[in-house]
């Protein structure tokens, strides 16, 4: 989990060992802290989505291939896994459950080999559009073949057909740890990939495909190989999803919306950094499971967040993190503690006020007949009284005003810090 994919020295240094250990520990203790069964499913989903988003970023962030059809490979991996589980339960294909994700991986890889052969011949928009076409085709066709895809209901299975080291994989916690182990290994492998010759040449192909041809590499091959490897990991992610839900369903697993989600959240997490997609995967689960539980307006918020994030932090969350780390590394972070606190407090005012307005609007639109009261953030708002509306608007406006003041201060301080850093870098270079 280095700051930049391109600058690195030996793969085993102290800070790296620390980071990976923290990652492992976080995965081990997370279910001990969040104990409800919903939390456990959420954690499990984060686990395999991390694999999927990382695999997506292998082609997107590292290979410059904008795909609109990644769900094809995760989905096919999932379908193949679930059939494998059913065969295993019947006893005709003896694979222990712990190896099912690999079956999914091979499935994903198989389809990557198949479709990648045509898609990776091209890059840029052409690639993007072919993947869009293939994605739509696969998604539409899957519904037409109930034999393999199980029709509307999908294919179900039961993961408890065997035991492994005493685990039946009935309880979610066991499944979580299975996912966590895979997540850790796959993350490590994909990270390792960034440091291999193929991984580096993939970056070169992203940056300047033409020149790569003149240093001995066939760009189509490079893209194709990377695509296949990404398909493998995508398939593993799909396999784990199949184990987690014990059902695979075309409308969920293969749809264009899914593919779009991988793209959006990988980007939101930060495609230029290896660890960005991990953040993206976490956000994806939180947004789709928790946010929609909290509010009916979640799609509105999601749209807004996207718009604002892309406009103001086009490098994703990861780049925000790295920018702050950079400031910290140059010992300039001190003034920002208070500034961030200020931003958060004023921002909270703005958000609470604005969200209250939004919630009231939604309430009026959807459930007005259930009475004028909305419960929001511990408050009860009355949509029939002007006071609630004005109050919320006032809170939002005050928040906005204060935030603008803090933001200006922040921008100045930030500018100063960057100026210092630039100068410092120049100085060090000169030295």
């Amino acid at each position: 989990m280095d700051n930049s994919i391109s600058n690195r020295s030996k793969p085993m240094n102290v800070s790296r060992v620390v980071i990976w250990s923290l990652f492992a520990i976080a995965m081990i203790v997370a279910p001990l802290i969040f104990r409800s069964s919903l939390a456990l499913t959420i954690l499990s989903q984060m686990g395999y989505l991390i694999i999927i988003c990382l695999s997506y970023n292998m082609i997107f962030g590292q290979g410059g291939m904008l795909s609109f059809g990644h769900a094809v490979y995760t989905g096919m991996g999932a379908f193949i896994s679930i059939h494998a589980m059913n065969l295993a339960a019947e006893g005709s294909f003896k694979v222990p459950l712990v190896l099912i994700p690999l079956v999914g991986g091979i499935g994903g890889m198989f389809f990557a080999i198949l479709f990648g052969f045509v898609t990776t011949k091209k890059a840029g928009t052409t690639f993007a559009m072919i993947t869009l076409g293939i994605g739509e085709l696969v998604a539409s066709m899957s519904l037409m073949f109930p034999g393999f895809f199980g029709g509307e209901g999908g294919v179900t299975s039961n993961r408890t057909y065997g035991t492994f080291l005493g685990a039946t994989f009935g309880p979610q916690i066991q499944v979580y740890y299975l996912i966590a182990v895979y997540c850790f290994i796959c993350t490590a492998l994909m990270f390792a990939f960034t440091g291999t010759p193929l991984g580096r040449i993939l970056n070169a192909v992203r940056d300047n495909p033409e020149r790569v041809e003149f240093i001995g590499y066939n760009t189509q091959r490079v893209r194709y190989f990377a695509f296949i490897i990404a398909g493998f990991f995508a398939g593993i992610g799909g396999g784990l999803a199949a184990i987690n839900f014990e059902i695979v369903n075309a409308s969920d697993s293969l749809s264009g919306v899914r593919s779009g989600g991988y793209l959006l959240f990988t980007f939101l997490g930060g495609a230029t950094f290896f660890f960005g997609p991990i953040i993206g995967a976490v956000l994806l689960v939180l947004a789709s499971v928790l946010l929609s539980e909290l509010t009916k307006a979640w799609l509105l918020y999601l749209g807004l967040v996207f718009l604002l994030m892309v406009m103001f932090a086009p490098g994703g969350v990861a780049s925000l993190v790295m920018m702050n780390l950079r400031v910290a590394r140059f010992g300039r972070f001190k003034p920002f503690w208070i500034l961030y606190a200020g931003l958060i407090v004023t921002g909270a005012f703005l958000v609470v006020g604005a969200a209250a307005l939004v919630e009231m609007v939604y309430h009026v639109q959807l459930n007005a007949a259930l009475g004028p009261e909305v419960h929001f953030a511990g408050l009860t708002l009355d949509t029939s009284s002007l006071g609630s509306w004005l109050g919320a608007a006032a809170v939002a406006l005050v928040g906005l005003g204060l935030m603008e003041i803090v933001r200006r201060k922040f921008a100045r301080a930030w500018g100063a810090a960057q100026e210092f850093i630039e100068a410092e870098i120049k100085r060090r270079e000169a030295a």
Partner: protein
Amino acid sequence: MLKLQDIHAYYGKSHVLHGVSFEVGKGEIVALLGRNGSGRSTTAKAIMGLVYAEGQMEWKGQDILRKKAYEIAHLGLGYVPENRDIFPKLTVSQNLLLGQKGSGKGSRWTFKDMYEMFPRLKEREHTEAGVLSGGEQQMLTLCRTLMGDPDLIIIDEPTEGLAPKIVELVGQYLQTLKSRGISVLLIEQKLTIAMHISDRALVMGHGSIVFDGTPDSLRADAAIRKEWLEV
């Protein structure tokens, strides 16, 4: 005509020009010399409003410091950038067409003039500009800017990549411009040409003007040459 006073310019947070002052008169060819990285191209961009700058900048008595590039262009300043910036997917004639402002009527220059000056361009009229040879592209950029009928033209390293014979041609061409009353701010590496055709020479070093005088006096000033041009 053009007057710069204490111009500071920045790329983001990095401070590149540290107080540049000079003037260019009507019908004058002024050479702006200096080593790589001394800030000459940045000066050109600052004039055209393409980098953030502070200070005072006047053109025909009008303040142009905070104007947008297209406004500045409409006031009669033309700019030929150093990396050519041709539009590769457009044909040669489309490139020239884009050089025109408005309908192109009343311009001192027509397509015909351009093609007469560089017959090579005429031959490649309908070719995509991206496949032109390096030198052809250089000719195209010169012509494209002229099509906009500027009163002052800022040319950044025009002889770059041109065959010796064409370099001479460009020299003549600049003098033709001068004879039509157009001022030229010439940024050059090749001292010989610059010294040969210019009325005045400026030398830049570390983001400010370190010499301002006639080519002859520059020739005479070995110390300046040694310190700021040749070492």
